[in-house]
Each structure stands twice: as structure tokens, then as C-alpha cells.
């Protein structure tokens, strides 16, 4: 494997203004607001600081404002309020300087299907002013990084979704940007392709590149990110390490499906709440049963099932799982996501 992306960072030469700054943040946002012309408030009063070298996650359901925010950072949308500095540059006043210093991978895979993998990367090299003498090496290096060297001469339209994503990622890294934006980079990929991408992202972050990633998947954020912000309806509702957020959920989740109507669910919920083998359990009623969040979900889950059976309930199904985004939201906001978003959030 050739050298992966080194952290070009401030030493790149094209960013002299930032060299003097003592420890400038990669992203510095205060009071960001974005209201679309139709009056939709996509983002409200977002404050955020992402230090250099951090792997930062922006977690939220569909339509929460993740993509809107990342597009403001990448100069594709103009904020309607607040101040956004990316690599020390103001996104509204100096968009070109921002564009030179970032890599951006859109949510939709963006490659030219009629060009080969090599040509796609070469085009990106030219677009980002990679010097001629460096280009050939850089293209080979990136093809190796994303494991596409074998198919470098094939047109991108022949690639699988995962391969196209990898190619897309490579084109976002041609100029060795100190900061990379990844907008839901693994949505729609199978687990194998996803794991592979995770590996690349980790590698470039290990080299010092700051990464700002949006995701709907708690697992993804958990695997990759140093720190997270949770966004809901255009507002940041929580911020911290993945551990912090899981702490807020307070354990694992036991879902129990029950026969009977609402009355039965209520009664079962009462039993679960008073169940003495769980300390600090949070119980909610779901569509077809109850959901119990507790640190002892795995250990004593079966005991609860037995207790429910003894009380005359018919358990038709059960499942213990790590907290999902839905559970995090439940813990943070005390309310359930609408079911559609929750489904999206299930990994």
C-alpha cells in the first residue's frame, strides 16, 4: 500500500493566513441559521466547534438538517444567519478559499459514469490544481487507497454502488485537504462495502485529516467518531462522545411483543417498571408491546419475560439490542421519532 493521504493541513502553502492562528478550529460556527425561501427553517441557531484532527459526527434522522448544514460548510448554500468559518475562512466572504481547502463527498454518489476510475480522479486533480508533476503519482496512490487499481481503466458506470462510492471518496481527497466532509457516506451500502469505507476514513483521520461526517446510524458514529452532535429539527440537542450519548440512554434495550391491546401493554409496562432485577429502567409502550431500556437488559431480560408469562401475558417475540438512534433520541428528547425516521434510523 502506498502512503495514504498525509495531512497536508496548514503546511500546504495555500493557506498562509491560518498558519499564525494559534490552534485554529477546522470548523467554527456560531448562530448558524438557514431558512429556505419557502420559509422552512432547516437549521436554527447552531453553534459548533470542531478542532483540527477530530473525527466529528453529525447524527440525526432524515430531514433533521444534516445535509443543509454540511452544504453550508461546503459553500453550496449560503447561511441566512450566523457566522461560519471553515479552515479559518468565512464561507460567505471567502468561498473559494474554503473550496480549495476542503474535500466534500455528497450524499448522492458523484462520479462521471462515462469516465474511467483513473479519468475521474485525474479530472479532480486538475480541478483542484494538483501540480502536473504530481498528478500521475497521486492518481495511483488514491486508486490504491480505495482498492480500485485493478479496475482503473474501467468506466465508472460498470462499477457497483460500493465501488462508485470509493471512487467518489478518492476524488474528494486528491488535493490532500486538511478537512473532509462526508455526507452520509455509507447509506445504501452493504455491510462489507461499509466496513471498507470506514477503514479508509479511519486511515485518513489517523494521518491527521479532520473529518466531519453526517450519519443516521448510531453504530457508524460509534465506530468512527471522537465526538458527536445530535441534530433534530434543525437544532443541536446533544453533544458529546459516543460513550456520553450512550450513557444518556442508560443501557441496552429489550423489546417485548405482547398479545392484547393497549390495556395489556399498560399493565405490562407497570410490571416492567417495578421489576426489581432492573435498576433504573426506562419503559415505553410501543405499537405491539413494550420497550425496556436498562443496563441489565441482557442479564435479566429472560427473568422479565418469565415474570410477564406468570402474570398471564403471551409474549410473541422479544429482542435485546444496543441502543439505536431512536433510543438515543428517546433518552435525549423524551419523545419518540416519527416512525418513518425511526425506521430509517434502525441499522
Amino acid at each position, binding site marked *: 500500500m502506498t502512503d495514504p493521504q498525509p495531512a497536508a493541513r496548514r503546511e500546504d502553502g495555500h493557506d498562509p493566513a491560518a498558519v499564525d492562528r494559534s490552534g485554529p478550529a477546522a470548523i467554527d460556527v456560531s448562530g448558524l441559521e438557514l431558512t429556505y*425561501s419557502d420559509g422552512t427553517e432547516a437549521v436554527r441557531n447552531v453553534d459548533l466547534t470542531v478542532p483540527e484532527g477530530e473525527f466529528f459526527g453529525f447524527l440525526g434522522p432524515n430531514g433533521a438538517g444534516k445535509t443543509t448544514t454540511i452544504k453550508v460548510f461546503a459553500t453550496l448554500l449560503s447561511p441566512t444567519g450566523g457566522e461560519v468559518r471553515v479552515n479559518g475562512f468565512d464561507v460567505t466572504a471567502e468561498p473559494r478559499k474554503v473550496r480549495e481547502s476542503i474535500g466534500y463527498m*455528497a450524499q448522492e454518489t458523484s462520479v462521471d459514469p462515462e469516465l474511467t476510475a483513473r479519468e475521474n480522479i485525474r479530472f479532480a486533480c486538475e480541478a483542484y490544481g494538483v501540480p502536473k508533476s504530481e498528478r500521475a503519482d497521486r492518481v495511483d496512490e488514491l486508486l490504491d487507497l480505495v482498492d480500485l487499481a485493478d479496475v482503473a481503466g474501467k468506466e465508472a458506470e460498470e462499477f457497483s454502488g460500493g465501488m462508485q462510492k470509493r471512487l467518489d471518496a478518492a476524488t474528494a481527497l486528491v488535493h*490532500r485537504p486538511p478537512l473532509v466532509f462526508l455526507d452520509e457516506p455509507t447509506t445504501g451500502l452493504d455491510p462489507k462495502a461499509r466496513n471498507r469505507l470506514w477503514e479508509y476514513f479511519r486511515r485518513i483521520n489517523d494521518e*491527521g485529516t479532520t473529518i466531519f461526517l453526517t450519519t443516521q446510524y448510531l453504530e457508524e458514529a460509534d465506530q468512527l467518531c471522537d465526538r458527536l452532535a445530535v441534530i433534530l429539527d434543525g437544532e443541536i440537542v446533544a453533544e458529546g462522545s459516543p460513550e456520553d450519548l450512550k450513557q444518556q440512554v442508560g443501557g441496552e434495550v429489550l423489546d417485548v411483543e405482547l398479545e392484547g391491546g393497549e390495556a395489556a401493554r399498560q399493565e405490562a409496562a407497570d410490571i416492567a417498571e417495578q421489576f426489581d432485577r432492573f435498576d433504573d429502567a426506562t419503559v415505553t409502550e410501543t405499537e405491539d408491546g413494550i420497550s425496556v431500556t436498562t443496563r441489565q437488559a441482557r442479564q435479566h431480560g429472560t427473568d422479565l419475560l418469565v415474570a410477564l408469562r406468570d402474570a398471564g401475558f403471551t409474549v410473541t417475540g422479544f429482542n435485546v439490542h444496543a441502543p439505536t438512534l431512536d433510543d438515543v433520541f428517546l433518552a435525549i428528547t423524551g419523545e419518540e421519532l416519527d416512525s418513518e425516521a425511526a425506521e430509517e434510523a434502525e441499522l
Partner: protein
Amino acid sequence: MSTPTDDSTAASEGRDRTVDRTKNTFVGDAWVNFKRWNLKAVRNPFVLVVSLVQPIIFLVLFTEVFGNVAGRAVSEGLPGVGYETYLVPAIAIQVALAAAVTSGIGLVNDIENGMFEKVLVSPMNRTAVFVGKTAAEVFRIAVQVSIILGLGVALGAEINSGIVGAAGIVAVGILFSLWFVALSNSLAILTRDQESTIIAANLLQFPLLFLSSAFLPLSTLPGWIQTFARLNPVTYGVDAARSLMLDRDVMTVIEVSWFGGTLDGVVPGLAVLAGLDLVLGAVAVFLLARASSSDVQ
């Protein structure tokens, strides 16, 4: 994930391999995009061929099927001019029109496959990006018009003004194509849909061609068609190209005698087309600027 040690190693590595970034220049950015669109055109020879096939079919069929009848109508006004010679400039304009349609399709494809946004987020000059794309299309149109002229000559048409006139006809074709390039890009931005763009552009093509001086002298056509033809850009393109082909002033709409001779037929046509290019070009630039600055969703 990134420990301080990692950071410092990486940073020093970065210093060791410090790479000077080549500044983006307008010409450079245009050139990069010019190359990309040419590469795409070569990758997609089907489009190149198809946009030539229809005009070639017109050229062959019209001369073979209508040659006798239409030739008589033509020779009434222009004695000694064969129908092939009369028709070739019109087909050249048709090629320019057909090729310009694909410009908008290219833009819609770019929007759909994300390349539009990818380009917007890069430090390339946005105007240069579109200049490069248009230049690639103009280049293709020049090649295609040249092919048609060669084919026409092979079929017996005569370019009376020689090689300079042939180059002039190519130039007229390019000037003519620009307003339709602008129009098809505007349609692309407004519809953001490949089929709508193709249908709208194709719907416009045939009325524009037939309700003009392209296939028959205006004087032989019904009054309402003559009226429409006077407002039709195709008439100005065809008449300018035809004046070069025949090496005499055959501009049917605007009568001037500033230069005496062929240029009296060419210059007014070019002036009208240039004006149209500017107006529709401005509309397309406005729409593109709006699309790239705000609601790229």
C-alpha cells in the same frame, strides 16, 4: 482516533512532501472541462453518430425525392443552382441545431449524477466551467458541419466561395448553434429532467426547420409561413450560410447593400444571430448562476 503523535508525524510528513498547489486560472479551468466533455463525447460515439444521421437522411432523401420538383422552384429564383447546393447550407444549420440539443442533455446528466455539484464545490471558476463545456460542444458542431459540407460536395453540391467560404459556413453554424445551446441549457435547468429536455428541444426543431427558408425559397411558401420564417432564427442562419455557399447575397429578410455582394447576405444574418446569442446566453447564465448559488438540491 487521532493521537497527538499521529498528528505530529503527519504534519512533518506534510512538510516534507510540501506540494505547491497550481492556482486555478480561467483558461486552465475552461481547458479541464473542455477535455472532460470531449472525452465524454468520444466515449459516447452513439450520440455523435445519431445527431448526424438525421441531417444526413434529410440531405439524401430531400435531394433524391424532392430534387426535381424543388430544384425547379429553386432555379426560378437562382438560375443554375442545383438543389444539392441549395440544400447543403440548410443541412449544416440543421446539424448545428441537432447538436445544440444535446448540450442541455449533458447538463441534466451532470446534475443527475452529481458532477454538477462536484464542480460547484471545487475551486474552479464557475463561468470557466461552462465556457469549457460550451467550447467542447462548439468544437463538435464544427466537426459535424464540416462532415456535412464534405458529404454535400461528394453528392454534387458546389461551394462557390471555396475553402474560405466553407470555413465561413462552419463559423455561421457555430454562431447559429449558440442560441440553441443556451436555450437547451435553460430548459435543462428549468426541467432538471432528461426526457423533458429532449422532448422540448426536439419539438422545437422541426417547426423551426420547416417554417424557414431552409428547404424551399420563401417566395414559394404560403404567406403565414413566410411571416413566421421572417421571425425564425433558422432563416437568418440558413440565408447567411447559403450566401457563402452560393457566393452571392441571398438573405431573404433583411436587404442591405453595405458591402456589395456576398457579405450583404452574411453580415445581417450574423448580426441577428449574435444578438440572439447574447440575449439567450444571458438568460442561461442567469439561470445557471441561480441554480448554482442557492437551491442545489
